[in-house]
């Protein structure tokens, strides 16, 4: 037993050594991760027909954008209409041999269209739902013909077999007539009416069935429902209609502007109302209001605003449409167009009024609308893009997710690095705003470095690219907030060297690359 005691000191030492609680091992590492990369290039606007390149590679601001585009076929709205037509013989009874036609009746169906008068239309879509009740105890053959309803010269006809009545229960047959693509003469059977659709119903007994007896109490019943009729051509008088509305136009490219102002040169700006319909009318622009980044508004002024001007009919046929256009030109003399555009609004509100046939049916029913006929208001701008920026604030927002801080690698400190490649003649400072999932700022970081404006090249046909690296130091409080950050807003405040003659060229672009240069604490 005494031998065991000799091991006790050794055992104690070993147990203490092994049993010591071990704290974690950690060290710092420096890792560079990309966060986002975005390029704001002038060529991105080409597809928008906003910018064009001149022969000297300079950029011409050429914007043609529709403010509204009205489909006046909505004025010719034929409501769903149901017509019930019945037939009975004039005698007390009549024996019908197989194959005997005993109904041959033409009806006119009139559509209530308020004060519109339609002589001719072409259906773009729509159908007639027909239900036929047969009172005789043999099958009948029902033939429907729509006189004046033609497609490629052929009159619309359709034949259906209606089952025999069973005792007092009539045989019933329902079917659908598709009217798509049919031209409809709406002048009626005599050609001197309007808004009228003719239908001819013929009924005969089954030639292979038995002879039957029909009495004057047997009633043949037609139920016709015209449903969802729309048109892509109409001729007549479209009624006297007045439309007033306000529409909004958003320019996405300017939504990234968050402050400052610009100076533009040589502005040529026009509002043009274009009438592609053969109808007389009047138009009026009631207001054109611009709202910028700060919510401030400015209203465009011009002597022709807020008063009606006449709109002549378009010169139009099936083969061609030449719209009538009414331009309103804005320049520095007749309007406040310069401050209006320098306001850098990203949202525009346009009020307008349109009167169709304000003087009644003076065309004697010659109003005509074709498939391509539109009533549009568009604005056109055409001027060289020479932008003088004065504390112009441009923002770009990137979605990010740094994830939870984990034990293996935790961010200790570091910096965001904004690498820029700039070929705009504009430079400035930048800051990063970190937003949480609710869009609230959890921190703002400012860099002491600047983005330099690009200098002109030797050939004077482009600006030379300038690279900058802006460091945004991440302090401890920002590190603690990183897991909550969901968006980073890059806010760039730019100025031009001068407010004039800052011509932009084809190569103008700003590449923004945001990196992290984090010191990570690794822990095992």
């Amino acid at each position: 037993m005494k031998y065991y005691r000799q091991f006790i000191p050794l055992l104690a030492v070993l147990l203490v050594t092994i049993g010591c609680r071990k704290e974690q091992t950690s060290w710092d590492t420096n890792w560079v991760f990309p966060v986002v990369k975005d390029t704001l290039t002038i060529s991105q606007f080409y597809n928008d027909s906003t910018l064009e390149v001149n022969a000297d590679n300079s950029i011409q601001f050429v914007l043609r954008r529709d403010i509204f585009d009205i489909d006046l076929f909505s004025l010719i709205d034929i409501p769903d209409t149901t017509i019930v037509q019945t037939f009975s013989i004039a005698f007390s009874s009549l024996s019908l041999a197989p194959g005997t036609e005993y109904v041959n009746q033409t009806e006119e169906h009139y559509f209530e269209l308020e004060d519109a008068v339609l002589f001719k239309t072409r259906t773009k879509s729509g159908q007639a739902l027909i239900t036929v009740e047969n009172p005789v105890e043999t099958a009948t053959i029902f033939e429907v013909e729509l006189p004046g309803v033609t497609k490629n010269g052929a009159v619309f006809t359709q034949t259906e077999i209606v089952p025999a009545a069973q005792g007092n229960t009539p045989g019933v047959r329902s079917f659908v007539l598709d009217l798509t693509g049919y031209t409809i003469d709406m002048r009626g059977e005599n050609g001197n009416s309007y808004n009228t659709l003719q239908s001819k119903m013929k009924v005969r007994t089954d030639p292979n069935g038995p002879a039957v007896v029909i009495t004057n109490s047997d009633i043949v019943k037609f139920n016709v429902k015209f449903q969802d009729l729309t048109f892509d051509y109409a001729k007549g008088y479209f009624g006297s209609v007045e439309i007033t509305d306000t529409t909004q136009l958003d320019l996405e490219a300017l939504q990234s502007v968050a402050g400052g102002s610009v100076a533009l040169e040589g502005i040529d700006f026009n509002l043009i109302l274009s009438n592609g319909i053969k109808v007389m009318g009047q138009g009026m622009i009631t207001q054109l209001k611009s709202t910028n980044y700060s919510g401030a508004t400015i209203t465009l002024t011009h002597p022709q605003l807020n008063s009606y001007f006449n709109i002549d009919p378009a010169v139009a046929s099936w083969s061609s449409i030449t719209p009538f256009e009414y331009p309103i030109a804005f320049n520095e003399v007749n309007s406040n167009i310069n401050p209006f555009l320098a306001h850098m609004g990203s949202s525009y509100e346009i009020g307008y009024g349109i009167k169709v046939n304000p003087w009644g049916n003076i065309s004697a029913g010659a109003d005509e609308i074709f498939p391509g006929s539109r009533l549009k208001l568009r604005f056109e701008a055409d001027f060289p893009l020479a932008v003088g920026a004065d504390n112009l604030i441009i923002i770009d927002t990137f979605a990010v997710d740094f994830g939870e801080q984990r034990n293996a690698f935790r961010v200790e400190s570091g910096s965001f690095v904004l690498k820029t490649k700039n070929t705009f003649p504009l430079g400035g400072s930048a800051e990063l705003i970190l937003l949480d999932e609710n869009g609230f700022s959890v921190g703002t970081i400012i860099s002491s470095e600047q983005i330099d404006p690009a200098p002109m090249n030797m050939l004077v046909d482009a600006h030379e690219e300038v690279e900058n690296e802006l460091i945004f130091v991440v302090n401890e409080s920002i590190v603690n907030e990183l897991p909550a950050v969901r968006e980073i807003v890059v806010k760039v405040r730019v100025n031009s060297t001068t407010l004039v003659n800052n011509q932009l060229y084809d190569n103008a672009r700003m590449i923004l690359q945001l990196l992290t240069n984090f010191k990570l604490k690794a822990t095992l």
Partner: protein
Amino acid sequence: MRVFNVLNLLLLCFSTEAQQLLPQSYDTLIYGNQVHLEGLGFYQTSHLRNEMSNIFLRGGYLSDEIKQNSRLAENQNGRIGGELSGEVVFKSGNPLTKSNENLGWIAKMGYSNVFGAQYSKDAFDLLFFGNQSMLGEEATIANTSAFNLSFYKAGFGIYNRKNKNSIVLNALFGGSYTGIDIDRGHLTFSEDGGEVEANLNMGIQQSISPSYFQGMGAAIDFELHAAIKDIPGISGAFQLSGRNLGVMYFSKVESYGVNSELTYSGFTLNELSDLANYSSSDFDTYIDSLGFSSSQFSGVRWVPGGTIQAGKIVEEGSEKVVQSFFGVRVLTNIIYRPMAFAGAHVTVNDWLALGGQLTFGGYGGFRGGMYAQTEFNNIQLGIGSEDVVGFLAQSTFGKSLLIRGVWRLD
């Protein structure tokens, strides 16, 4: 599970080492029943200084200065390896057969955890310094490999009670196995860290069997001795010994591999953590997104910590006060370099012997060791280190502790 953990602790606490450097002695006396407790704990590195590995062992913060001190020069490869093991050996004092009274039997059980790694300079830099200094450059992580294996052993064998030659056949019960091999590895980081072009031929293997013993195997331990004669100036005995020489069969191994040129879109912070956290549930998803294929297989692996040692050992009961010992040791893995050793054993008196040795090779370079051995009554105790300076200086490259106890029961 708890039983095995307690067993581990007991083995590591009480055990001492026999077949490592503490001078192997040759003793032709015949003893009765004996219990040997043998323990070994060491790690050795080629470049990783103790100031850094101490922090890994005890915890703490690795400063840039500490990391710089252990950094490799260009085109260098670093190595690290070690073992923590213990054995209880019972040697029967009774003859196994009446016909051969010199033949006795041995029973042993033990636990061992062996690990090793070799790495390139860039692999070290990437792990401890990050990618910032490698942007726009190519990092080479080829010739990087690592292994870790733990296992229990239980063996039975025979020995010659007089010349002490022995052979023991052990059953091995694998705890866990992890292996990483990067044969070809080039990573080119873009200037912004946004892209990594990788030219890789690498594999990761890990045993994943749900059972506690994830593998089964067999290994032999042996000792062969021969008296040295007819060599002027040298007396004593020659010993050839082997330990844990065998193979292990793993029933379920998960293997991830890639052998192609790939372009990755950089790393995110979370992905870096996923890579670092092998057990993360996101690891499989992420490793798959990196183009790695995964498979499961069963197969046989060499036990990487197997040891073969040959050399002259000292003779117990020798009249010489000072005896020399020397030899060479190899381990059965590609990271370990053959290690040569030589030393002197001094018999101070009847109950105390001291010694010292120099070694070169293994997982590192030169080391100097010392030991002390005492014997009283039926107890023999020894404690020593193959790397004495490693306990004292932060600038050295490893630590070593060897303990041995022999209790002669009758």
